[in-house]
């Protein structure tokens, strides 16, 4: 056994290297500087049949092996780390799950154009609360007839917004952790599917990375990938393979930096000879080459295992972890060898140094890779009392279900305009109003001041806004009690007045618990505060992060319709009741004692995991209370 690639592999490498050197290398610096996606080069890669290397020809792929794919990523990354990840995310993350879990129809519709390179693919798993721990996924998909309604968002999504097809993960069964996650194929351009800004990244700047926003996106039922609840399994097996792509990318980046360093060490002459022949530098090069060889064997071996359908989860984790760890070391040494020149923009090693960093982070941080490797060796850790966050227990906002739309786009004036637009759409009529001194408990609308209002003269801003909004004036407890800006009977909160009307505009109020409890029945809560982290923003329907001195006059002007008509008797706008999680399956009652089997809880004493449906219980399972058999249970 020679641990060598085949001639075919090396021919493919030569072909891709030639392409990368000719098509990408000349523009790599420009792409990096301008944060620009190499549309043209990617299109050509598709034409060359390289966007679907590991997929069968019948699905538009090249029908080559996983190692060929790893070589392709490596060679692209060798000249540009960003180009490497475009291919890796497209193949491993955007296309592979459809190949592995898709129906024939899904493969024909989505995989074929992806493999042919006519379309670009991406993968949406990461969320603000769900990175390494997918159990924290908050994006939801609710089945409504023949489609799912997708809501939520994803962050740091590679190839977005360039990609046409997104494999997106969302919770279909809440409160049971990772087993409640499902995968969907979502197309760019569908109603309610938006992109956030293209991130300004440290490295791999030629790859596009953006936020995905789902606002009531209707996903046809047939775009469910696999079965409901399969999402976590699909995500994990996709990432198992994806690691080979990232490992290959890290290897390529390191190889590129190494090649540049070796060349430079032969050219740069100090003390009368090329620095490469100074022992300090030669040892560095020896170390770098050794690390590269190690990494390459790990990567290629993992790819071969995958191709042979042998278990490769641990090996791909080792490859990803090691290749990316040494990519940092190798690019660091390569830059060091370049000396001051390497520190300059435009130098390949400077870019490689920045590009390398992400490879220890994404598609599973190297810390998570170690968790994966260790779990393959040691098995599952004993259950800890604290439990994993795969059973999310997030406290609901005190004010209940809120829209939490934070208006960030555009200038403050545009934000205010957007707010007024929302309020009018919700049915608030600003041609009518109530007297400013209406008791809080009877007020339909209240404009309320918190400590963030500042000096007492700023209460004028509150009064002006109250007048323009046809609202009464309220305050937080300190504003009445300590600052004494308003009488004590005007402070809103648990211990003070409860506001149960339709519109509450909280100005400079941070949102202490006792205050929030006093407004939890408000139909609409608007928050205006300089501190984006203030609790009020988690408890509001609409929010503007900004200074009251700037926002309030704008809002006053926007709402001012001159003299208000007296408001008709208030019609309370309905507040939604917090949705209850749907049961994951029926409960069953024992005919021997009345014990109730609850699938959400399982039967821990018999090692039946929470979430196990009654029909999935082993046949020899017996009632934990009276030992009656499964057959004596009836559906509750």
């Amino acid at each position: 056994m020679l641990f060598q690639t085949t001639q075919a592999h090396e021919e493919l490498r030569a072909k891709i290297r030639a392409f990368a050197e000719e098509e990408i290398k000349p523009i790599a610096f420009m792409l990096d500087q301008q944060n620009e996606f190499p549309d043209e080069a990617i299109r050509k890669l598709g034409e060359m049949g390289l966007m679907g290397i590991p997929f069968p020809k019948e699905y538009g792929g090249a029908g080559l092996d996983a190692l060929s794919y790893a070589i392709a990523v490596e060679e692209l990354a060798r000249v540009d780390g960003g180009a490497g990840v475009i291919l890796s995310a497209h193949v491993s993350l955007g296309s592979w799950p459809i190949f592995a879990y898709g129906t024939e129809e899904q493969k024909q519709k989505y995989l074929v154009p992806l493999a042919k390179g006519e379309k670009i693919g991406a993968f949406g798993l990461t969320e603000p609360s769900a990175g390494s721990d997918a159990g924290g996924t908050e994006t939801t998909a609710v089945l409504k007839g023949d489609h799912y309604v997708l809501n939520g968002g994803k962050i740091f999504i590679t190839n977005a917004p360039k990609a046409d097809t997104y494999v997106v993960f969302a919770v279909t069964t809440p409160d049971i952790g990772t087993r409640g996650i499902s995968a969907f194929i979502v197309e760019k351009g569908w109603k309610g599917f938006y992109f956030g800004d293209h991130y300004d990244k440290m490295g791999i700047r030629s790859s596009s990375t953006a936020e995905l926003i789902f606002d009531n996106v209707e996903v046809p039922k047939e775009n469910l990938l696999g079965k409901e609840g399969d999402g976590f399994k699909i995500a994990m097996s996709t990432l198992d393979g994806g690691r080979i792509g990232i490992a290959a990318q890290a290897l390529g980046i390191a190889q590129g930096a190494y090649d540049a360093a070796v060349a430079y060490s032969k050219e740069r002459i100090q003390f009368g000879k090329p620095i490469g022949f100074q022992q300090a530098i030669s040892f560095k090069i020896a170390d770098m080459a050794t690390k590269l060889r190690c990494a390459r064997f790990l990567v290629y071996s993992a790819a071969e295992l995958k191709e042979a359908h042998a278990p490769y989860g641990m090996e791909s984790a080792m490859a990803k972890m090691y290749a990316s760890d040494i990519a940092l070391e190798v690019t660091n040494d390569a830059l060091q060898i370049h000396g001051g020149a390497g520190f300059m923009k435009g130098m390949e090693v400077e870019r490689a140094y920045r590009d390398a960093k992400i490879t220890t982070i994404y598609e599973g941080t190297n810390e998570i890779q170690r968790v994966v490797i260790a779990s393959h060796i040691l098995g599952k850790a004993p259950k800890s009392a604290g439990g994993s966050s795969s059973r999310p227990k997030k406290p609901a906002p005190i004010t209940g279900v809120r829209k939490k739309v934070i208006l960030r786009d555009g200038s403050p004036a545009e934000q205010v305009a957007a707010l007024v637009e929302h309020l009018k759409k919700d049915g608030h009529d600003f041609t009518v109003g109530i007297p400013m001194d209406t008791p809080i408990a009877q007020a339909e609308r209240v404009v309320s001041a918190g400590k963030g209002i500042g000096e007492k003269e700023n209460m004028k801003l509150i009064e002006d806004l109250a007048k323009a909004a046809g609202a009464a004036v309220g305050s937080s407890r300190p504003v009445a009690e300590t600052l004494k800006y308003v009488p004590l009977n005007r402070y809103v909160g648990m211990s003070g007045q409860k506001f149960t009307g339709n519109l509450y505009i909280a100005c400079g109020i941070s949102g202490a618990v006792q205050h929030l409890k006093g407004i939890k029945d408000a139909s609409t809560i608007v928050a205006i505060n300089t501190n984006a982290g203030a609790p009020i923003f988690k408890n509001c329907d609409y929010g503007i992060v900004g200074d009251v001195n700037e926002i309030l006059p704008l809002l006053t002007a926007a709402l001012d319709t001159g003299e208000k008509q007296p408001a008709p008797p208030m019609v309370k706008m309905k507040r939604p009741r917090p949705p209850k999680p749907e049961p994951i399956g029926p409960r069953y009652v024992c005919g021997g004692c009345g014990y109730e089997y609850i699938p959400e809880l399982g039967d821990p004493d018999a090692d039946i995991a929470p979430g196990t449906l009654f029909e999935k219980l082993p046949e020899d399972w017996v009632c934990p209370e009276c030992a009656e058999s499964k057959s004596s249970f009836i559906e509750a």
Partner: protein
Amino acid sequence: MYCVRTVTKDLYWVGANDHRLTLFENIHPIPKGVSYNAYLLLDKKSVLFDTVDWSACRQLLENIEHLLGGKPLDYLVINHMEPDHGASIEEILLRYPEVQIISTEKAFLLMRQFGFHTDGHECIEVKEGDTFSFGDHSVTFVAAPMVHWPEAMVTFDTTNGVLFSADAFGSFIALDGKLFADEVDFDRDWIDEARRYLTNIVGKYGPHIQLLLGKAAGILDQIKYICPLHGPVWRKDLGYFIDKYDKWSRYEPEVNGVMIVYASMYGNTEAAAQALAAKLCERGITDVAVYDVSNTHVSYLIAESFKYSHIVLASVTYNLGIYPVMKNYLEDMKALNLQDRTFAIIENGSWACKSGDLMQTFIDEELKNMTVLNERLSLASSLQADKAAELDKLADALAESLAEAAHT
């Protein structure tokens, strides 16, 4: 002196009434007493269906002796082993040494556990669907697990259509001479106690009652008499009572109305509860019942909770918790499996008002499929004029929810 009544040809009620027992199962008050029903069939063979509580044993013995007229007792069918029916088994065995016992495997196990010495008697173990002939009369045994003990069965006499229904279709209240439901004004005088009996004793096992009702549905046209172990025998309008059982066991309210239960230390929370009741009646909602949780035995509260569609809980905060008696009521609702109700909450607290949140959490997390209206009334010590608007909103919300419930 014997005290028997004829149910139908060859079949006699040989049970007894009890007015001395204060607490049924030593927990539920029975101010109007209770009956322990046993039935004697005089066919070619003589058959006693169940026995009575130990306190009524002598009456049972006198009744049997009178009817048998010196003949031996041939069979003892035990449908339900709970001691208020099973405690006299051993005495019967001692007096009639040749009697053969017919019951389920689990019932025989329980007899041994309770120490009713069945050894030396022939024990005939029967299971679902088994039949037995006593001469002219043939019976079929039907398992009734968890109605409300696991060993329970019911026995159906296919000859005369008598269903010996064990604890199913029973009721509190002593018979006092009357035997048949059509001899009393059941819907006026008995239904509340029948409901209190069912919901408190068997309420938890709705699915199993449904299972039994399902089995009965198949032979409904053949059932002529329902002979329960407590309360009157049904021979007319069986559908009336079966329908009630169907509702209770599906946890479906009988009345679209409001039950207000208050926990009040000094009358302030009570005042709020009364104010709400008045506001509801002003809105035309007169199906309103108000209870003081401290002075009403929880079995009555449970029965009323099964009856009404909407429940308002008004509670003070006590040691930063729910008032203990109110907490006990909530726990009982959980134990008895009450579900599908709409709740509203009135909370009171003089410094740290916690009862509302705690009750809401209990309802949301411990009870099944309950709805809690958003409109909660919070009191600081007492209901003052400034809360009038909130009180109205609560009444409006209840009215609206009742109207919605009426439409569905």
